[in-house]
Every structure is written in C-alpha cells, then in structure tokens.
C-alpha cells in the first residue's frame, strides 16, 4: 500500500501527463502519411516543414513577436517587481491584486476585451495588436518571477548602496539588475514560452496579414491529424521544454545569490 502511494501512483500520473506527448513525438518520425502504424524512421516531415516557405514566415513572425513581447514584458515586469518591493505609491495594493487577477483571468476574457479595445481605438489587427496583447499577457508572470527572487535579497544591501550615495537609478542598474539577472532571464524565457504557445488571446487579436505559429497549428489541427503537425508540435514541445528548463536553472542560480 505504501509503495503504491509513494511510487506507483505518481508514476501513473506522470505517464498520463507524458504518454500523449511522447506519442506525438514518436510519430513525427514515422514514415507513413496517414496511418498511425509504425512504418519506420524518417525525418521527411521535418524536411517538409523546413521547405514550406509559408511555414517559415509564420515561424519567423512568432519568434519576432515572442522576442519583442518577452523583452517588453520582462522589462516592465522587472520594474513592477522593483516598485512593489521598494516603493510606496498610490494603488500599490491594487497593483498587487491586479497582477493576481490577471494571472487567473481566463484568456478568452483577456482576448475579447483587447479585441474591444483595438476596435474602439481603431488599432488594426496584426503585428501591433499581437505584440501589445502578448506583452500584457506576460507581464504578471514576469513580474511575479522577478518579485519572488527580489524578496529573498538582503534588504540592507539597498540601504548600504543608498548610504554610499547611490541614486535610485544607480541602485537599480548597478545592484538590482545584476543581482536579479538570472531571475530576469527566467522571466524572459517564460514570457517567450507563453507568447510562442498562446492560442486563445491571439485567436481574437490577430489579423489575416500577420499569421503566427500557434494559430497555424490550430488551423492545421482542425483539419485533422497529419504527420507534419506531429513534427511541428514536436519542435514546439522541445522548444518549450528547453525554455522552461533553462528558466528553472536560472532561478535556481538566483536562489544562491539570495543566500
């Protein structure tokens, strides 16, 4: 009984979480166009992906949006975390609450509310609408990632810097940013992941002129299961995996700085 709860049960849950993903990965190398019977190893679906110029454009769009949104979100997230930690200002508690609410808000609510904003202000749906939406989506996650590490720093470090004559900006650029760099990198990586994978919000705020990967995947998946999708999904899965692992490693590194 003890063994069941300690080992077998968690193994089943992990199996449940990973089996479907593993199947997609395995069958992306299957040399069969329709059936899911194993017909031998091939890389042809990956070659097809890389020779599809439309696909490459879409991927490039996603990567550009991801890089920009992650950079904006991790910058704004960092100054949000720093403000919450160091300053008293009007609406500080409200800001705390707002970040929390933004994290638990279903994406569809965010998506349509931004759609309404864009249509009310005549922002065309495309690059800018996506960038602003993705940045907004990522800010609370970035802010919380950085905030969770800034609180572990020795507070007298900031007082010492102030005592030695450092201005707020110097404290930010010479003390906070270097010390929290791993956490800021982690926030960037997680934001990039969110942007790369976001379907629901993007679905409402993207336009025909600027297609991105997650929506392309959705369109392909709706048409049915094809080996190229397996290959594309595999690439995205591996990308996410690397980003998340890198982010965790960065956060662990920052934990040590705090000690």
């Amino acid at each position, binding site marked *: 009984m003890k063994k069941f709860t300690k080992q077998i049960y968690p193994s089943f849950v992990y199996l449940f979480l990973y089996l479907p993903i593993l199947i997609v990965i395995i069958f992306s190398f299957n040399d069969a166009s329709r059936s899911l019977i194993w017909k031998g190893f091939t890389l042809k679906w990956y070659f097809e992906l890389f020779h599809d110029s439309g696909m490459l454009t879409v991927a490039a769009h996603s990567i550009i949006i991801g890089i920009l949104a992650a950079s904006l979100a991790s910058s704004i997230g960092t100054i949000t975390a720093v403000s919450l930690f160091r300053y008293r200002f009007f609406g500080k508690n409200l800001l705390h609450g707002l970040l929390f609410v933004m994290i638990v808000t279903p994406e569809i609510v965010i998506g349509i509310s931004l759609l309404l904003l864009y249509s009310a202000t005549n922002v065309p749906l495309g690059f800018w609408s996506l960038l602003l939406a993705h940045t907004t989506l990522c800010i609370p996650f970035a802010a919380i990632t950085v905030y969770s590490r800034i609180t572990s720093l020795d507070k007298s470090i900031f007082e010492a810097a102030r005592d030695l004559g450092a201005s707020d900006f110097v404290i930010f650029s010479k003390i906070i940013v*270097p010390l929290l760099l791993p956490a800021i990198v982690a926030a960037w990586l997680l934001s990039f992941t969110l942007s790369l994978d976001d379907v629901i919000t993007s679905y409402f705020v993207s336009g025909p002129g600027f297609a991105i990967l997650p929506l392309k995947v959705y369109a392909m998946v709706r048409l049915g299961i094809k080996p190229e999708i397996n290959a594309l999904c595999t690439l995205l899965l591996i990308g996410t995996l690397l980003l998340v692992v890198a982010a965790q490693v960065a956060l662990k590194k920052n934990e040590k700085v705090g000690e």
Partner: protein
Amino acid sequence: MYTNIVELKGVSKCFGDYKALETIDLTIQNGEFITLLGPSGCGKTTILRLISGLEKPDTGHIFINGQDVTDWPPEHRHLNMVFQSYALFPHMTVFENIAFGLRCRKIAKNEIVERVEEILRIVKLTKLAQRKPDQLSGGQQQRVAIARAVVNRPLVLLLDEPLSALDYNLRKDMQVELKQLQRKLGVTFVFVTHDQEEALSMSDRVAVMNEGHIEQLGTPRDVYEEPANLYVAEFIGETNVFETKVIRSDKQTVEVKVEDKRFTFKNKRGLKTRQEVCVTVRPEDLAVWRQEEVGEVSDDMLPGKVEQVIYKGSIVELVVRLESNKRIYATEFFNEDDEKLDYQIGERVWVNWIPGWEVILPV
C-alpha cells in the same frame, strides 16, 4: 569642524503604535568612540538609523557638524554605516565594493584607485582585492564592510552590531582591530551593541539604553562603578542587590539596615530618611572569610553558607546563601601562594566589603 559632531535634540520616533524612541537628547563629540548599549528593542539601532537618515524622526532635530540635517537624505549627510549583515554587494569584487561610494560621487578614476588601495593596505586586504565577498571569511568580510564605509572619509562612522555575526575569538580580535583603526583614522565611531563587555572594552563613552531612552551616558568606568540607577547597575556586569530603607540620613551619611545589621555609609546621592533604596555590591568587591580566618566577628560581616563553588580558571565564583535565605554571588581571585580558595559546599562563611565600594541607589 565642530567639537559636537552629532547632536540630537528632542528626537523621538514611533513605528505605528510602537514607541521606539522616547524624546531624547544626545551629543556626540568629534573623534570619540561612543557605544549605544542595550537589549534588543531598546531603540539603539533606531538612533543609528535616525543619524544616518535611513529613518526620519517624528519630533526634534538632528545636527551634524553644526548643520540641521533633519530633512536631509542619507547621501548628503557625510556619514557611512556598517551593517550587521555587512550588506556587501555579492556580485562585486572587494575592490568594486570599496570603490562603489567613490564612484557614486563621481570621483576621478586615479584618485579612486589610490584611495581604495590605501584603505586596502590599512585593513590588510590588498591581496584579496579581486575576490568576491563569498570567497572571504567572516572577519575579512567585516573588514571590507568597514573599508567600504571609511574610504568615503565620513564625518562619523555608524556601526550596527558589526561583530555579532563573528564567533567569540574572532570577535575579540576584531574589537582590538576596530579600536586601533578608529585611533588611526581619528573618525568618530558610533557603535551599537547589546554586548556589555564589547561596549566597556572599546568605547570612550557608553550610552546605556532601555525602552527607548538613555539611562546613563558616561565613560565605561563611570557606568560600571557609578551606575546612575538600578537598571544600569544590573545591566552592566553582575551585582548583588539588597533592597532596604534609609533609617536615618544627614548630608554626609546614611544609615541603612542590610540583612538585619546596621550600616552607616557616605550619602553621595542626597538620600532622605525612610526612602526606599537598594544597596548594590559587585561580586568582585565582596570578601569571603572562612570560620578560622575570622577571629572576632565584626559588625559588618554577614554570615552565610557556601551553596555552590564555580571554578573558572583565574577566579572562583561562590554562591552564598545568607541567613535571610538571600542568595549572593562573590568572586574570589586566585593568588599563587594562597590555598584558601578551597571552599566546601555547606561551609559556614562571613561576607563583607570595604565601606565605600557599595553603591546605594534610589528605587
């Protein structure tokens, strides 16, 4: 340069409902080593933070070098602080840590190098200049923290329990080093600690604090030998306290009853008849006599029984139960050719002291 480098006039501070500091006045002289001593929560760190500008007083004014700096931010006060946790910047080398303050004040590069190297020599860290703080020992980190502060040539150096993180032996060494450094630099040190031994051994003056106010300000000798009140007497060192009443008093003398015996002492504090007082005697001021040493029991001797003998190397501490059931402590020093310190538990002894070594304090 003013002789009174720091002055606090009518300064008080609350944190919410908690009164951290009652209204206090304090004058710190240029070049002295002054220690704020008291238990945690007595307001000593608050005074330090008020002087540094990290906190603002609710009332009163703070003067540094003759100027009212009450509303000045910390960076304009020409003071520097050494933090309890050292607060070294973990991502910078020793050199960069020490140069930080000079760089913030936009001092020329070659002067920065010169001044940092000079201070590194003084604190004997020249070889470790390129190390990061986590590659240093506790004592070395401590010296970096002090160097980082004094390199800016502050008017006053504020030290917030800087030795509390070190182990006993290192702390002893650092006490000596710190005192030497202070003499060499001639900078005013304001030192906060809860360790009375540290305070007595290093300071020119000690301010004994309790619950947000200063109980006594004086030289280490003053606060030890002439405590202003019972709190100071009991906080600094150990002391035996006899609670009693003044039977009779005039300008020169007081008569009190201690353990049912009448004593006449000098009236140093203008005590009045029937005033409640405490007669306090330090353990090392008590003499303990064995039965065979006492020829004739004199009037000032208090009889008792040895309850415990604590051997401490150079001294022996005795716990004596007096006839009134009161327990007192006495410290006897070893004398090479003296074997009389061989007390037995339960042995009958007499205790007295040289008149004048007692301190009589009003309750």
